[in-house]
């Protein structure tokens, strides 16, 4: 899954450790999320979205968004 976590974090001038502390997870988790090695659970995705004041789909893209748009 592609995500904009690294960009959002950089915009705020946060380190991976800062973001990890804010979310209550390990720095390794943030690194794994940013590099696409790990996809978050729904509760963690919500926490990330709330922290950045955005919707989950603004941050995470599973590459199937075109299907939703086509259905609409």
């Amino acid at each position, binding site marked *: 899954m592609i995500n904009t976590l690294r960009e959002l974090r950089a915009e705020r001038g946060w380190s991976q450790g800062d973001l990890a502390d804010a979310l209550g997870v*390990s720095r390794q*988790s943030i690194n794994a999320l940013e590099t696409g090695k790990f996809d978050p659970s729904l509760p963690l995705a919500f926490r990330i979205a709330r922290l950045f004041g955005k919707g989950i789909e603004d941050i995470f893209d599973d590459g199937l968004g075109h299907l939703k748009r086509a259905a609409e």
Partner: protein
Amino acid sequence: MAEVTFREANKRYRRAFVPVMVFYTVAVFGGSYLLKQFETPPMWLSAIVALIMAAPVGGVLWLMWRLARETDEFTRQQQMAAMAGGGLLTAFFSVVWGFLELYNVLPPLWTFLVGPIFFLSYGAIYCFGMKRGPGPGFDK
């Protein structure tokens, strides 16, 4: 599942791990010293010493399990994969050794070595997994 952060879960683990290992060290050396005081130690005493030595290992396994439950989801995946991988490797190693032992190729293996073999396998797989990230079976 308790709602604790990654940092708190690690702190809880370390806070309990150190005394358990101190107890283990004291039990191993103290127990061996105690049994050496007898020419033929009574069976009941040997059994008690052996169980006291083994108890902290059970404690460490429980602490590992608690840490896996309390830590963040990425680390939990790594921990669970390492525990499963460590268990599978240990089982395979034991079976291979057992067959070789059956045909007198290798000497009998002390059963208590299964514990350290598991911990070594678990540690190696955990370190490897942290570098590599979860495999395709995890959330992909």
